[in-house]
């Protein structure tokens, strides 16, 4: 492990927005590492900080009213504090990002092929002809039928699933080592979602990339990732291998989240175990564990002192909880 330098090292990353009602800690001290050719899932409900975390890793935060501290080392490049000009040297080439809404992440008045070969010409210095040939190749790679003809169409002429394929093609154009995918399939139908997830898997293998898959859907990460981070109120509450987090989770929130999802394999009318209350207000976080007000296992210490991420038995698995679930109880039956 040590002789392979990590692709991405995030250390005590904090993103705080200045709002009229006071500082809002959207990401409150997150640390993790990511190796090469790995797929990491980041899951959480809305407001858990997963999207802000992924944007901060990219260095995509607003210019004003935001404070970022800590460190994001991407192949040795420090993203935090870098100027936009410096960051442009890694955007697209080392790291690329896919956003949730394929309708708004493409330029509506530019032919799709041009949007891909723009990157090839500007960032990789290809000439017009080579760039066009490569763009058609990329369209083919992402499964656009008759890519040579589709090169000249506008985004509005394509369906949502096809547009997301084009977005993936633009992201791949610079051959990045890391692909950040923020809810890449959320607006899509299930059969199209399955196609896009399969596509991401196959391009990851072909291009030897690492993928960070940010989603609210535990179903998406269950079979597509090797490791998972569970976030709550801007912090990591559990991290570990996918199997370990699903099977032997220790943090009650992870358990509650899994129990709250209706499952296709359960008989109809089986009752869901809902989590009482709602996610905390980030402007007014409790002093102790942020999940304590909703937690069935909370004790006095949970309300006064915030738990740190403690390692579990399996290496790489850690959880932040004063009263962790026993291993056997945490296992899914």
């Amino acid at each position: 492990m040590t002789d392979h330098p990590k692709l991405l090292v995030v250390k005590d990353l904090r993103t705080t927005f200045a709002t009229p009602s006071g500082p809002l800690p959207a990401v409150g001290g997150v640390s993790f590492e990511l190796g090469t050719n790995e797929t990491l899932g980041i899951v959480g409900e809305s407001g858990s900080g997963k999207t802000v975390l992924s944007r901060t890793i990219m260095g995509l935060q607003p210019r004003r009213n935001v404070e970022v501290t800590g460190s994001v080392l991407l192949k040795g490049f420090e993203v935090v504090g870098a100027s936009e000009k410096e960051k442009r040297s890694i955007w697209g080439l080392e790291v690329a990002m896919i956003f949730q809404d394929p309708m708004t992440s493409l330029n509506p008045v530019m032919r799709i092929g041009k949007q891909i070969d723009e990157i090839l010409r500007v960032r990789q210095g290809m000439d017009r002809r080579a760039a066009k040939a490569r763009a058609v190749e990329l369209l083919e790679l992402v499964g656009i039928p008759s890519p040579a003809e589709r090169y000249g169409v506008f985004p509005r002429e394509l369906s949502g699933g096809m547009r997301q394929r084009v977005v993936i093609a633009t992201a791949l154009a610079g051959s990045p080592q890391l692909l950040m995918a923020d809810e890449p399939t959320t607006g899509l139908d299930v059969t199209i979602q399955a196609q896009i997830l399969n596509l991401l898997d196959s391009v990851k293998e072909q291009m030897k990339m690492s993928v960070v898959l940010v989603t609210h859907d535990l179903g998406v990460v269950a079979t597509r990732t090797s490791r998972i981070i569970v976030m709550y109120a801007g912090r990591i509450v559990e991290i570990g291998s996918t199997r370990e987090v699903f099977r032997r989770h220790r943090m009650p929130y992870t358990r509650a989240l899994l129990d709250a999802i209706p499952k296709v394999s359960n008989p109809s009318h089986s009752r869901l175990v809902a989590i009482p209350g709602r996610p905390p207000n980030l402007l007014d976080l409790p002093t102790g564990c942020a999940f304590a007000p909703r937690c069935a296992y909370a004790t006095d210490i949970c309300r006064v002192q915030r738990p740190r991420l403690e390692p579990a038995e399996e290496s790489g698995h850690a959880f932040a909880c004063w009263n962790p679930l026993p291993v056997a109880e945490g296992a899914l039956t």
Partner: protein
Amino acid sequence: MSDRTPLLRVRNLTVNFGSHRKQLSAVAGVSFDIFEGETLGLVGESGCGKSTTGKALMRIVEPTSGSIELEGTELTTTHGKALRNLRTRMQMIFQDPISSLNPRRRARDLVAEPLDCWKSVRGAERDALVNDLLNKVGIDPEIYGDRYARQFSGGQCQRISIARSLAMRPKLLICDEMVSALDVSVQAQILNLLVDLKREYGLALLFIAHDLAVVKYVSDRVAVMYLGKICEIGPADTLYDFPEHPYTEFLLGAALEADPDAPLRGDVLAGEPPSPTSPPSGCRFRTRCPFATDKCATEEPPLEEIVPGHRVACHYPLSLSAEANA
């Protein structure tokens, strides 16, 4: 079961949009019954016509043809006051809880609006009923009754929408993607609440959603729609465990289970749904169906009962094909 009169009887409902030159058939001949106290789930991908079906039942969009009978009264030929009267018997809950409530009105007034409109109860009786409804959906009227809709979260707004829809004691509730904008932890709360209230009020539900697991959780029977037509309808557990239409099988296979050991069921369905402005001839699913033959292109499969209560519109239902191969 079949000799009971249904609460809602829908026959050959069609909805076309657009001019004569370019017609889009959103709903193309849909028939189903909903019995008293029953939940019918309606699933399908976007553009399959499931929401339009729900809206046509409420006459929010006008049906092009077909018949909708609620408790024996034909809805499609009713107008004016008689229609408004009938609408109190069926209510609709929409997907976006925040935009479906006026942000500048108080929770209490939003729930009271149907009562005031119909002047069914007044004065202290009205206030007591409003408080009772808010309590039922888990919103404390003492603390939250006078807050404005804009001060509530999505989950709370959806609770207010439910209270408001129950005010006139309807027999049928049409829920159009009512939990798809909510987080999982809140979604579970709202689904549990819906199931409890359904039992308490003896409601029948038409539950429209794209999430197969959510639909299975609430439904007694499930109908699967593809491109404006019902391709399969049957009891929830049977339909999920033994799907007969190839499309249902693919749809279930694409549903992601939150389990790292979940087997990936079957192959991924290739392609995308064709445009409803020019649907394929014969079976509408044939362009994506791996089992399609010439017969599927020329002859439209009728929705036929293969087991009592389980109907499928396919020339080659999966169980029959399996028998033929054996």
